[in-house]
C-alpha cells in the first residue's frame, strides 16, 4: 500500500494543517501531541471533511484532488475507520454492528470473514450482546472488527487505546499486531504513546502544529529526532541546551551547564556550535557507590531529586548539574534502595546522546 498525501492544506482554529508525505509502512504511526491535527488528517483520508487543497492517492487510485475537483465519497474509498469514540451504533446489537458494512463477493478480502475476524479478536461470545453491555476493551475490539469486515484496503485507527487503562492497553496491542500480521491490512495509527508505536508501527510521521516535523522508520526517529519539536513530541525526556567544545574522531564534547557530555557526531552541520543534546530516559544507567570502569563515555555524578511510578517502570529525576531523567525497573530501584537525596552516578553511552543543531 502506498498512500500519497500532497499539498494538503486545511485551515483549523489555531493553525493550518499542511501535509506533504508519502506513507508506505504496514503500520504507520501518526505521532504528535494533542491538537496537532492528527484526527483531521485521518478524517481527510477517510473522506469525512473538505480541504482548502488536497491531493490524496492510494496505490493508483486518486481519492481526492481539489485541483481537478475529484472527491471520492467515503463509502467508495474502501477505508475502514475506527474513531477515538469508536462510534458503535448503540441501537444495534454487536452482530448487527459487525455486519453493517460487511462486504461479500467481489472486492471482499477473502481472509476477512465474520468467523475469522471474530476468532482473531476473541469476541465470539459477545456477538449476541448489546453494545451497551460491553466493557471498554470489548467495545474496542468490536469496533475494530466492524471496520475490518468492510474489507478495507487501509485501516485508520484514532488513538484506539487512549481510553483504556494501562493493563488493558497491554492486552489489546497483541490483537492489533495480529491484524497486522494475519490479515495484512495496512494501518494508519494515530497515537501519542511511545510503547504502542514501538510495539506496532514500522514507520512514523510526527505531526507538530499541523506540520510534518519528521517522518521515517520508527527506530530512526526515536534515536535521531530531527528537531527539539520532534524530541518533545516523542517525549525524549531530556533535551538540553549545550555548546560544542570540540569534535575529535567523530566524538563531540558538549558543555551543558557545568557538565561535559560526550556524544557521537552523526553529521552535524560543519561549524555547528549551539546544539540541543537529547537523551532518552531508558538509555540512562544509574550506579550507586563508586563507578566501575566500563565502556560508557559519560559518567555523571549527581543526586536523586525524586522517584515516581511510570507504568511498570520507575522514573528517576536526577540533578547532574542539569536535570536528567532515567527510567528504571522497580526491581532495580529496590535492589539499589534508591531514595531522594542519594548520591549516584548516571551513565550514558556517547551514541545515546543525540545532538540537534540549534
Amino acid at each position, binding site marked *: 500500500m502506498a498512500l500519497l498525501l500532497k499539498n494538503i492544506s486545511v485551515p483549523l482554529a489555531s493553525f493550518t494543517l499542511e501535509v506533504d508525505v508519502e506513507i508506505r509502512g504496514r503500520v504507520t504511526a501518526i505521532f504528535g501531541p494533542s491538537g496537532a491535527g492528527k484526527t483531521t488528517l485521518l478524517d481527510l483520508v*477517510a*473522506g*469525512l471533511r473538505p480541504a482548502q487543497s488536497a491531493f490524496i492517492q492510494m496505490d493508483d487510485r486518486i481519492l481526492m484532488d481539489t485541483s481537478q475537483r475529484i472527491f471520492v*465519497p*467515503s*463509502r*467508495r*474509498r474502501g*477505508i*475502514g*475507520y475506527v*474513531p477515538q*469514540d469508536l*462510534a458503535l*451504533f*448503540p*441501537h444495534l446489537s454487536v452482530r448487527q454492528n459487525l455486519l*453493517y*458494512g460487511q*462486504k461479500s463477493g467481489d472486492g471482499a478480502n477473502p481472509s476477512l470473514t465474520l468467523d475469522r475476524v471474530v476468532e482473531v479478536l476473541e469476541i465470539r461470545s459477545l456477538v449476541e450482546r448489546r453494545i451497551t453491555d460491553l466493557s471498554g476493551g470489548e467495545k474496542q475490539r468490536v469496533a475494530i472488527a*466492524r*471496520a475490518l469486515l*468492510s474489507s478495507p484496503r487501509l485501516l485508520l485507527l484514532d488513538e484506539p487505546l487512549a481510553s483504556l487503562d494501562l493493563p488493558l492497553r497491554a492486552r489489546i496491542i497483541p490483537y492489533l499486531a495480529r491484524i497486522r500480521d494475519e490479515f495484512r491490512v495496512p494501518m494508519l495509527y494515530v497515537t501519542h504513546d511511545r510503547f504502542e508505536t514501538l510495539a506496532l508501527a514500522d514507520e512514523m510521521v510526527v505531526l507538530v502544529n499541523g506540520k510534518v516535523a519528521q517522518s521515517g522508520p520508527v527506530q530512526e526517529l526515536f534515536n535521531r529526532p530531527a528537531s527539539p519539536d520532534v524530541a518533545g513530541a516523542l517525549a525524549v525526556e531530556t533535551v538540553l541546551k549545550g555548546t560544542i567544545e570540540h569534535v575529535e574522531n567523530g566524538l563531540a564534547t558538549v558543555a551543558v551547564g557545568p557538565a561535559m557530555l560526550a556524544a557521537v557526531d552523526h553529521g552535524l552541520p560543519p561549524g555547528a556550535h549551539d546544539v540541543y543534546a537529547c537523551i532518552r530516559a531508558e538509555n540512562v544507567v544509574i550506579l550507586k557507590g563508586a563507578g566501575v570502569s566500563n565502556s560508557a563515555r559519560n559518567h555523571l555524578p549527581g543526586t536523586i531529586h525524586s522517584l515516581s511510578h511510570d507504568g511498570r517502570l520507575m522514573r528517576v529525576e536526577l540533578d547532574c548539574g542539569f536535570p536528567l531523567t532515567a527510567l528504571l525497573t522497580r526491581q532495580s530501584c529496590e535492589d539499589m534502595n534508591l531514595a531522594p537525596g542519594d548520591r549516584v552516578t548516571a551513565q550514558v553511552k556517547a551514541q545515546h546522546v543525540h545532538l540537534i543543531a540549534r
Partner: protein
Amino acid sequence: MSAEEWQIIGFTAWVAALSTIVILPFGLGAAWLLARHDWPGKTLFETVITLPLVMPPVATGLLLLTFFGNNGIGGFVHKHLGFRIIFTWRAVLLALAVMSFPLLVRSVRTAFEGVNPRLEQIARTLGAGDLRVFFTISVPLAFRGIVSGMLLAYARALGEFGATVMVAGNIPGKTTTISLAIFESVQDFQDTEAYRLLGVSTVLAFIAVWAGEWVIRRRKS
C-alpha cells in the same frame, strides 16, 4: 351522544391523524436539511415554516384562503383535477397540516441534532449510502424525538380552530371539528353538548400522549 357528535369526533380524530401522516415525510426531510446541512436560504426557509407558529392562526387561515381560493391554486385545481379545496374536508386537512408542521419540524430537528454525526460518518465509511444512513442510523436514533414531534403535531391538529374556520368554514357533517363544535355549542348556549365535547377532546388528548409515551418506553427497553 348523538350521531352527529360521533361524526364530529370521528372526523376530527381521523383528519388530525391523516394530517400528521401527510406532513411526516416532509417534516423529516426539512428537519434533516436544517439539522445537518447549510444551504443558501436556510434561514428564510426556517422563518417561513415557523410563521404559522407565531402568526395569529386566523391570519394564517386567511393567507391559505387567499392562496388556495378560487382565484389562486384552488381554481387551477378545480379546473384541471375536478375537486375543490376550500370549504371541504381537504381544507381542514390543509389547515391542520400547515399549523402543526412547525411543531413537528422543531422537535425532529432537535432530535436529529442530538444524533452524534460521527455515527453517520462512520456508517458511510462502512459503505452505506445517504438513504441507508438516514433510515438505519439517523431515524432510529432520533426515534423518540420523532414520536414526540408527531404527538405534538397531532395534538395541535386536534385543537386547531382559527385557520380551520377560515379555510374550511364550519359546515355540519363536512368540515366541523371538535373545536369548532365546542365554540358553536357555547355560542348557542348548549352548555351540555359543549362539556361533552370537552370531555371527549380530553380523552383523545390523553390517549394520544399516553400511546406516544408507551411507544417511546417500549423502544427504550
